[in-house]
């Protein structure tokens, strides 16, 4: 064959064409337009010759095909005329249609990660053979980013799996592993890697030996026109509520199906929806934030070619010791164990330690469904340490006791004495400046702060607080630790409240101030929701705990001169504690918010304030705080502010962070 850039083509004696994708440009097999052109040409060639069957596979064992290459994606998202994106998507759409219409049987052997474009291509084939290995999984993460690939695969999914299963797949928090793929009907067979090719051959040679998956119009599709929102709310309970961006994508798709029916027309229509979605402001912002993280990570990996958080060196590498098994301590322990780091966790209370085992088992079981041996492996990484013996030889020591300055001070002193001198000490404080905590330590230069935003957010970007005296070696150690638990550290200067806590408190305090001025709770909540905040302010306060909130507010008031809202003080004085205790700004029953009848009536008939005005106040406050932080150089670039306000405060991803929002709204108003 002529020189192919992205494929290896082999036709064997039986007339079966083996198409092996090998994309050398990137590790993860991401596609671009040239790839699609070449693919399309090849399929055209196959159509003419007497080919008995076509098998598509990848030359790598850990990846089949993933999303769109970042450069191409950039181009598509920022394409003003949307001609390029239209061209790109219709090219892919055409390719998939050609694959589908090939007369010979087509089989995709999926081994390794398969997402987005991979799913689209695989769905165009007649059969899918999934290799049963740890690394093999299917997912569609692009939905959460606010777009879809638009090759018609999602409509094909609906035709094959039905409506409910498709929505579950698109919304799933964990990717689908082999077992689940078979169960849902995504793949026709799951088989060991060395047998996959043999099975594909057999299926092509004896077409009767396998039942062809049927593609029909699901019954649900006919009822679809009733309402897309009903369909979305009927998503079964085990699925996380989709984010605003994902909801937007799904609604667009459902509207298409409603208008066109679930058939070839809808498949074609996906081009239009994909084009409009990818160039929307919200998706563009989300992609921008994502690319920020990615470049940061790549920069780190390039400068550290050996230690890039790979799991191969797990047992020889760092030893982690955690003091305090509260929510944060347990979360870090779970993350470490999940990523293969040896971690010991200490708490003075045995009862608190006792919960670690049960909770992490549930956590790992969810992370590795159907892989009890991996659950076991992860659990083996955690050592429950009642005598605090792990502190002596740990490389990274994490202090995660409750936010109390004196308790933290004395504990850090103890750690400083007991640990080895080369270790890095990480504190999980959210408001107290590091200099105040490290002032009595013998080696204050090894204390850094880390804010993982848990339990509120589970974001990839985390805040790494670094004071001026910290040595490079310690920063290095802390950074490599955060990368090895798959988090991207954003360096932040050590000032009171750092960055995210300060922004978070600005949001909460302003909400409380508005509340004090006589606006009803529900109005403020409504306004915040409309703004696209991940959490409404009072929900957030209840979640954090009122006392904790007040402590942080006071800490910031002492150091920065922020207000301490008296309504919060009142609530705390009344003994209201928040969600865990069952009562805060709202009432909670079994961990869920509920309203009494009186409240419901009151909420309904309360005086409605001007929502726009509230939103404006909240936005202005947050934007001002962001600019203030940037002015005193808490972080060195406005992008980091945006990233942290999204991941640490829950600012709308679609708006792309406060400063970015200010930037493009002021531009458009000019």
């Amino acid at each position, binding site marked *: 064959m002529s020189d192919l850039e992205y494929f290896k083509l082999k036709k064997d004696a039986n007339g079966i064409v083996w198409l092996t994708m090998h994309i050398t440009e990137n590790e993860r097999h991401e596609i671009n337009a040239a790839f699609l052109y070449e693919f399309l040409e090849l399929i055209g060639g196959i159509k003419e010759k007497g080919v008995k069957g076509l098998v598509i596979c990848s030359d790598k064992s850990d990846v089949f095909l993933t999303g769109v290459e970042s450069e191409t994606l950039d181009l598509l998202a920022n394409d003003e005329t949307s001609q390029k994106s239209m061209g790109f998507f219709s090219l892919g759409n055409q390719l998939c249609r050609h694959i589908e219409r090939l007369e010979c049987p087509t089989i995709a052997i999926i081994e390794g990660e398969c997402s987005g474009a991979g799913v689209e291509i695989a769905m165009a084939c007649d059969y899918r053979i999934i290799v049963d290995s740890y690394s093999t999984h299917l997912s569609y993460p692009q939905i959460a980013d606010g777009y879809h690939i638009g090759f018609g695969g999602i409509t094909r999914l609906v035709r094959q799996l039905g409506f409910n299963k498709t929505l579950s797949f698109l919304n799933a928090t964990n990717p689908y592993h082999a077992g689940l793929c078979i169960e849902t009907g995504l793949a026709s067979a799951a088989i060991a890697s060395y047998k996959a090719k043999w099975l594909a051959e057999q299926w092509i040679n004896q077409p009767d030996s396998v039942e062809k998956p049927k593609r029909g119009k699901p019954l649900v599709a006919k009822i679809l026109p009733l309402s897309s929102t009903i369909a979305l709310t009927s998503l079964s309970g085990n699925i996380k509520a989709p984010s605003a961006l994902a909801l937007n994508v799904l609604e667009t798709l459902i509207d298409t199906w409603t208008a066109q029916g679930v058939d070839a027309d809808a498949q074609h229509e996906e081009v239009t929806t994909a084009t409009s979605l990818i160039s929307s402001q919200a998706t563009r912002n989300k992609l921008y934030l994502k690319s920020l993280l990615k470049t940061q990570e790549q920069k780190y990996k390039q400068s550290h070619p050996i230690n890039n958080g790979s799991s191969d060196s797990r047992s020889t590498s760092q030893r982690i010791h955690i003091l305090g098994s509260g929510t944060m301590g347990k979360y870090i322990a779970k993350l470490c164990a999940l990523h293969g780091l040896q971690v010991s966790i200490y708490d003075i209370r*045995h009862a608190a330690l006792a919960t*670690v*085992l*049960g909770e992490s088992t549930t956590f790992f079981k969810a992370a590795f469904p159907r892989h009890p041996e991996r659950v076991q492996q992860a659990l083996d990484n955690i*050592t429950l340490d009642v005598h605090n*013996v792990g502190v002596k030889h740990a490389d990274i020591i994490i202090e995660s006791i409750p936010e109390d300055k004196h308790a933290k001070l004395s504990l850090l002193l103890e750690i400083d004495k007991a640990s080895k001198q080369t270790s890095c000490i990480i504190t999980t404080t959210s408001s107290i400046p590091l200099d105040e905590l490290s002032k009595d330590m013998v080696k204050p230069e090894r204390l850094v702060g880390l804010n993982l935003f848990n339990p509120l957010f589970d974001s990839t970007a985390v805040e790494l607080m670094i004071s001026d005296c910290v040595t490079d070696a310690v920063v290095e150690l802390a950074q490599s630790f955060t990368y090895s638990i798959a988090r991207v550290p954003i360096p932040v200067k050590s000032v009171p409240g750092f960055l995210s806590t300060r922004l978070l408190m600005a949001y909460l305090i302003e909400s409380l101030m508005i509340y004090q001025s006589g606006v009803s709770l529900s109005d403020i909540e409504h306004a915040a929701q409309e703004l696209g905040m991940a959490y409404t302010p009072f929900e957030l306060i209840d979640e954090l705990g009122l006392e904790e909130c007040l402590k942080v507010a006071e800490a910031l008031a002492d150091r920065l001169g922020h207000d301490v809202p008296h309504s919060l003080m009142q609530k705390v004085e009344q003994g209201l504690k928040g969600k865990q205790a069952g009562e805060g700004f709202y009432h909670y029953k079994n961990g869920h918010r509920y309203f009494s009848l009186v409240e419901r009536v009151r909420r309904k008939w309360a005086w409605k304030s001007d929502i726009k005005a509230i939103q404006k106040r909240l936005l202005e406050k947050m934007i001002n705080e962001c600019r203030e932080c940037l002015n005193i150089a808490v972080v060195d670039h406005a992008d980091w502010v945006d990233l942290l306000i999204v991941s640490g405060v829950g600012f709308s991803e679609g708006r792309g962070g406060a400063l970015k929002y200010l930037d493009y709204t002021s531009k458009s108003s000019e």
Partner: protein
Amino acid sequence: MPAAKTVYLVDGTRTPFLVQSPDKQCYSALDLAMVVARIVLVQQPFSAQNLDTIVLASSLCDNSVDLAQQLAQRLHCSGDVSTLVQTGESAGLKAFEYASQQIALNQKQLVLVGAMDAFQAHSFVMNKSLNSWVKRWKGAKGIGGKFKALVALHTQHFGFSEESLSEYPGFSNYQESAEKKAIKQGISKDQMTEYVQLSLRRLQYAQRNNLIASLSPLFYQDGRVINRDESIINTEHADASSAILTDDNMAKASEGAAMLLLASEEAVNQYKLPVLAKITSSTWGDCSQKNSTDTRINDAVEQLLAHNKLSLDQIDYWECNEASAVDILTIQQQCQEDPKISSLSNVNIDGGTLALGSPPSANVFRMVMQLAHILQRNDAKQGVVTSTSSNGLEYALLLEAAHE
């Protein structure tokens, strides 16, 4: 043959000893070993990769799988770690002896040695007749054959197994000889009960004052924590049976795990390991050959003292395994010339097997560790661990405190 090297006891820990109970969610033997091994390793400056040998002992467990190999894998040991599992009677003693020889003679640096006894591997054992019936059922061919086999099934097949696992191995053997011994020495039941009470008091004192050597609590999935040895002595009911040996004054089998880390001198220097004690020498004896009344404590101890040119009163502390109160009371009677032993003031001072319960193989590790801690605590020099297993095998081990 090169000269034997000194073996250092560096660290160790054990789980609380638990009473068997059917309704509890349990640890498997391997999980128990994992818990203690991880605790021992987390205290060390080196990682599991540096371990040379893992030796495990287990008396109660099914030995069809190589537990030590599995443990090595789960700890992420390096590929060339050598492993060994000892099973059967006095497995703990054999494992310990093997482990210390690895360092003394075989040039190994770091050896992890432990034992674990868990019951739940077989809470129900098929008796022989049911077992043979099952074989017949499997062999039967066709519907007719199966039917015949089914007809042959009889209620007698469902009797309990004769060999219950919850008892001390070789138990009935032992009981007879111990009773003989008691009658010969004129030890009464009251004396024994008194000793059991003493042992229990000592244990409780040690527990209250945190004198029990490094105990790692066991955590369960459902949030339970067991952080002290479960009490096995029922003080309220008095046994009225006519037998001299009753349930109360015999050691009861319990479950638990213990793990020790042994190191050579090179390893101690290389990693600057804190040393608990030196394992100086050990001897084996056999009481079934001779008349045991000739010796003062037992044959193995006599040999050990002779070999190291020591006399009884030079030994500061004793840890004696007591399968029953008879053992310890016999020693007391036979060592009248040594006031400390005859008053039991330096024997099992933190309570012994009778009060604690005895996982058959993990117990010896507990004794070694406890003695090391007693020596350290009291600034003493030398101590002896001795054990007589039910088949007459005697073992004695000389520990020397590490401080110069």
